[in-house]
């Protein structure tokens, strides 16, 4: 059982006119925690606050049970790397990697030199040691920056958008490297990004940030299929976000009804709602369905069918791996099929089709206001195991 490495409670940070507030989370020793959010959501402010680079207005940060809330950055022993490498051009690559050791008076230590040599070898930058950082590529700079950050064996590595300035091939290589560092070094990583695909590929847990607050905490796949708020749903690219209302039928079953009232989804169960609680009748709600979870078929829907409706294909977009089909039927719906499935259907734009969704793929969230971080499905979503 992994121990709690980092504990953040009621953290509150002022950064000019921006306020980071109500930040609460625990990080285990072997976690790869991703902080995800759009520009201006407070991700970097949070990361810098953890590193001690910002004045903390309230709350507590504990590392290994020790309160480090007001410790200066040099006493926290946390590794930090920014997106563009940020190397010191007046030093060689070797001096850059050893810069942290120099700060702690260990640059001449044979053990540190050996560790540096092993590190640069494993990261594929040993041939760059005597070069100036000015002549390095983006990927090389980022590797040197990582080597510098982890040389003195920090317990937590803080990464601020480490992949965003890299081209796709280098980014992929860096993702593999980050995974290797995470497992080989046995350290906790907090990785800030605005890219949800990075979250899915690297993260063991994700915190979605919005306007200085935590919007949702959970496993990346859990967040992918079951976002807890409308913001989370939009940010991670949920394809179908439909507003409606909860109604009860004569038999006491709950249904999600579209705003125009002529399409019902259900019957709803506890699992349909992110909080795991049955909603009240006439409560506004938002239906979230992944494009891949909407089934597209030939023909008209049966009269008695539930969760099934008629639509007309409006647009078809071919991507590298799949086909996105936009259908118009009691709203605009986006479905996603593989090339093979699409070719087998033999359909085209303007054709009438039948759309359906399985009850277990229906996910509903509250249609009112903001959703609190404490009520997020990281605690409530026990039934989803990946």
């Amino acid at each position, binding site marked *: 059982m992994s121990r709690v490495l980092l504990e953040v409670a009621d953290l509150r940070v002022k950064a000019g006119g921006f306020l980071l507030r109500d930040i609460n989370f625990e990080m285990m020793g072997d976690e790869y925690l991703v902080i995800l959010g759009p520009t201006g959501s407070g991700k970097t402010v949070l990361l*810098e606050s953890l*590193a*001690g*680079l910002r004045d903390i207005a309230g709350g507590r940060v504990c590392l290994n049970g020790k309160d480090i809330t007001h410790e*200066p*950055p*040099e006493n*926290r022993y*946390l*590794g*930090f*790397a*920014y997106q563009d490498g*940020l190397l*010191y*051009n*007046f030093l060689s690559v070797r001096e850059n990697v050893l*810069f*942290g050791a120099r*700060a*702690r008076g260990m640059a001449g230590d044979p053990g540190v030199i050996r560790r540096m040599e092993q590190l640069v070898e494993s990261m594929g930058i040993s041939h760059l040691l005597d070069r100036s950082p*000015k002549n390095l590529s983006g990927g090389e700079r980022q590797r040197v920056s990582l080597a*510098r*950050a982890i040389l*003195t064996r920090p317990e937590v590595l*803080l990464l601020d958008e480490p992949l965003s300035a890299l081209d796709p091939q280098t980014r992929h290589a860096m993702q593999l490297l980050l995974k290797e560092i995470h497992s080989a070094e046995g350290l906790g990583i907090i990785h800030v990004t605005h890219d949800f695909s990075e979250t899915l590929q690297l993260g063991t847990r994700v915190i979605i940030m919005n306007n200085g607050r935590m919007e949702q905490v959970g496993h990346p796949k859990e967040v992918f299929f079951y976002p807890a708020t409308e913001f989370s749903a939009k940010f991670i690219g949920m394809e179908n976000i439909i507003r409606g209302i909860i109604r009860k039928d004569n038999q006491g079953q709950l249904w999600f009804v579209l705003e125009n009232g002529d399409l019902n989804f259900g019957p709803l169960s506890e699992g349909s709602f992110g909080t795991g609680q049955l909603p009240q009748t006439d409560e506004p709600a938002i239906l979230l369905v992944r494009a891949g979870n909407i089934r597209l078929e030939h023909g008209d829907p049966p009269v008695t069918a539930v969760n099934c409706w008629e639509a007309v294909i409006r647009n078809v977009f071919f991507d590298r791996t799949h086909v996105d089909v936009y259908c118009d039927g009691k709203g605009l719906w986006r479905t996603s099929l593989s090339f093979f499935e699409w070719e087998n259907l033999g359909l085209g734009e303007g054709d009438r089709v039948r759309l359906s969704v399985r009850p277990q793929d229906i996910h509903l969230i509250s249609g009112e206001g903001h959703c609190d971080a404490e009520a997020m499905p990281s605690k409530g979503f026990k039934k989803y195991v990946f």
Partner: protein
Amino acid sequence: MKDLQCLQSTALKQNRVFAPAQTNPLKSMKINWLQLSFGLVFVVLTGFMAALIGGLFVYGKGDFLAVLRNPEFRFALLFTLWTSVTATLLAALIAIPAGYVLSRQRFPGKALIETLMDIPIVLPPLVSGVALLILLGPVLGEVLTRFSLDVVFSARGVVVAQCFIATPFAIRAFKQAFDSIDPRLEKVARTLGFSQGMVFLKVTLPLAKGCILSGLTMTWARALGEFGATAILAGITRMKTETLSVAIFLNMSIGDIQFAMSVSMIMLFLALLLMSLFKFFTSSEVSQ
């Protein structure tokens, strides 16, 4: 032979037929009036500067070596060098922290403080001299005398006047130097284990080195040529508070044109040297 003639005739015909129509190159040339007028300004300006410097050389070359051997000139040169270097170093000591604070900190009244610091740039040097004379004479004079630190009408006054005039240039240059450094480079150094003071010494200063050196050069140049404030605060006393600028003024006023011209040439050489240094530091900063 016939074939050759035939070929030549065909070639001529082809040439006549296919050669582009001969046009007047002046007519086809489009004149960019904007570029032309701007270029003209540069030509006139360059010609004016060349004539200015050339005139100084022509009139000042006379007995140049005799002036170099003149004790008054030697005093003025050495006096100017030590006072201006001291003033520049003092200006740097003030301007580095001031420039850093103005670059990195936000505080109420910052714009007002920046304006106050810039006052010596816009104030006529004579007015600066009068203000310094009042402050260091009637206001603080007694205190300074008690500590044997008289400033008025002394060599110290020269250093103070030069420093006062040159410091705002240094503050501006250093502020720009610190502005150009990504603060995240300093933040990374903090996380690597350096204290705030060590970050300034190990990261900020090395990163700003090129800009600081070019700023120092311009500050020195400003101190070197200072006259107005120096004249009011330290006085114009031969062989006592006689800087090169003062020497030119004194000798022009008594009609020793040859001496004044030769000193002017020396100052011109110094200015060219400082400008070259400035350009060198600026270009090395750009290439980093």
